[in-house]
């Protein structure tokens, strides 16, 4: 689950990571008020779940409260699409009004998990405010990674070495030391998968402050963070994807596709998409119904796929394991009945209770083409949609 910048900053602030003064506004009038309280000079930032806002016009400088109000009015109610947001347009419902900072230097600081090392990792770079992936490729020596033993925490000696490599003075060293420890604490106690401060800015007065903040929470751990769940902004998610998420379905809409896919297992789902492509058609979505999908979940999956106007054909590819094919078949029938939408289906059912499932589907009035395996399913797709 992603947080908005302002939500992430609230968390940082409550853990004493320094941030500039700022407040959320839902209208130009509110923005003006907040800007006035800062004395005028401020930044107006669109609160959307996408990086790269600056280049896309989602971050504007204002020299006075009226300008802040104007920017806010322009942004709120509009949509933002950035180079990082894929095809999605994010609605701007709130803006964050932040005191302008006099930046002397920009750094990059993040905490995430390094799965190869099986431990959290702190990433620091002297090249902040820019694309860190590019830095990683071009100037690997400007990035330092600190692997963290989860019991020991960030080893002081490793931070000391970082500080000595980049020759920070004593004052900044001590600030950086604290910020790293605070961020790590936030990362662990909130089950984060990512905290990214880019830039961590050195501002006038020789102080480090978090100018931007991105926090992502481990969805699987949300059950123990009821407070964080409240921060979830439904508006930032495509309706179908939101519906899928509420039903524990992993769904991603793909633009330009026409074959709706319903598969169990992420691997098989990706394979199914690969095969659809090889058969000469484009998949309309990625959809993994998960390991132990219930009738209801399958019903909703059916609804989500059939609600997509692009979908001309559905490929159902279920391999019963912990999922029982008969349960899935019943779910499809229920979805068909409840939502009264029908699209031709190519169905491959194998594994646990697949024979029962076929019998259940055969009894329905839906237009279904059964295939015994993926190659023949691919042929079927090619026959109906292939170019």
């Amino acid at each position: 689950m992603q947080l908005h910048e302002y939500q992430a900053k609230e968390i940082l602030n409550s853990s004493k990571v320094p941030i500039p003064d700022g407040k959320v506004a839902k209208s130009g009038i509110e923005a003006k008020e907040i800007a006035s309280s800062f004395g005028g000079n401020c930044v107006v930032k669109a609160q959307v779940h996408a990086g790269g806002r600056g280049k896309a016009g989602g971050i504007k400088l204002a020299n006075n409260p009226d300008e802040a109000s104007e920017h806010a009015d322009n942004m709120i109610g509009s949509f933002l699409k950035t180079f990082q947001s894929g095809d999605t347009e994010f609605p701007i419902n709130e803006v964050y009004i932040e005191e302008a900072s006099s930046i002397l230097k920009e750094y990059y600081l993040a905490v995430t998990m390094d799965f190869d090392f099986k431990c959290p990792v702190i990433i620091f770079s002297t090249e902040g405010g820019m694309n860190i992936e590019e830095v990683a490729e071009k100037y690997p020596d400007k990035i330092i990674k600190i692997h963290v033993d989860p019991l020991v925490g960030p080893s002081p000696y490793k931070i000391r070495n970082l500080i000595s490599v980049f020759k920070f003075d004593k004052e900044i060293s001590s600030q950086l030391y604290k910020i790293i420890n605070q961020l790590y604490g936030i990362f662990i106690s909130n089950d984060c998968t990512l905290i990214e401060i880019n830039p961590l800015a050195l501002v006038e007065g020789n102080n480090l402050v978090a100018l931007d903040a991105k926090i992502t929470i481990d969805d699987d751990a949300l059950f123990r963070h009821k407070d964080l769940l409240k921060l979830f902004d439904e508006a930032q998610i495509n309706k179908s994807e939101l519906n899928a998420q509420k039903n524990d379905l992993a769904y991603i809409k793909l633009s330009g596709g026409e074959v709706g896919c319903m598969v169990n297992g992420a691997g098989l789902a990706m394979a199914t998409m690969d095969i659809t492509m090889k058969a000469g058609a484009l998949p309309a979505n990625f959809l993994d119904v998960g390991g132990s999908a219930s009738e209801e979940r399958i019903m909703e999956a059916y609804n989500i796929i059939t609600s997509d106007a692009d979908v001309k054909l559905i490929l159902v590819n279920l391999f019963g394991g912990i999922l029982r094919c008969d349960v899935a078949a019943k779910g499809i029938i229920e979805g068909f009945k409840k939502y009264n939408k029908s699209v031709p289906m190519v169905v491959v059912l194998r594994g646990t209770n697949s024979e029962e499932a076929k019998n259940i589907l055969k009894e329905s009035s839906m237009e279904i083409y059964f295939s015994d395996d993926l190659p023949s399913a691919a042929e079927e797709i090619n026959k109906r949609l292939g170019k």
Partner: protein
Amino acid sequence: MKSILNKDSNKVLVQGLGRDGSFQTQKCIDYGTEVVAGVHPTKAGENFNEIPIFGSVEEAVKHTSPDIGLIFVPAPFASDAIIEQVDAGIETVVCITEGIPVNDMLKVNNYIKGKKVRLIGPNCPGFLIPRKKLKVGIIPGSIVSEGKVGVVSRSGTLTYEAIVQLTMLGIGQSACVGIGGDPLHGTSFVDVLQMFEEDQNTEAIVMIGEIGGTREQAAAKMIKESISKPVVASIVGQTAPEGRRMGHAGAVITGKSALASEKIKSLKSAGVYIADSPTEIGLRLKELI
């Protein structure tokens, strides 16, 4: 520690006998697996098809001496179940549960470091050895057949796809091992490849990878250095969208290795035979034997 492919005793304890757990346990028993005990906190003293259910793993171990533990416990409690089985001295722990928090698995991984235990999973289909009539997990028994090919995969259902292709072509399996899709997991490709290399019942290997992470690269390195048996691999996700993401830290950590093309390159250079389409895994292997 003997490889799981060649242990003499294979008594299974099942922890978590809810709806799915019960159903799948029955399938294991039907396949021929020797399930000796169930563990469920509120069903202690009851039976599951004549198999005694205990309140704790410790009790179950005391009375039934299982060799393998199978876990269907819901995600919030699953990491504790893994630790309970490890503490009780079970040497092979298979965790089917998906959706375990990353932090929980971080703790488990640290906890088992240096301990004499083989953890398979979580979020995996478990393993199946046709020759031994041993099914520990959810790989459908109906699709496998006895033979000489070892199958190892990160993906659950895609493993079944590969098995079906092999079986349809008359190629049996020595063992099928699903290592699970979670980024923090126990047994890795490298571990299973080593087992297959040492296993005299295995003559060829099928390995199914995915985009993301760097596990396939680690496998490629290991294959180059120490696997003498032929390996066919397929990497799925070539057409998957990159997906939106907020930050860049992940990409800084794995670099380009997460891409399917990079993984395929590594494997090819290690002498692995690549099945370009997931539908061709079986055919590709058939060419080799």
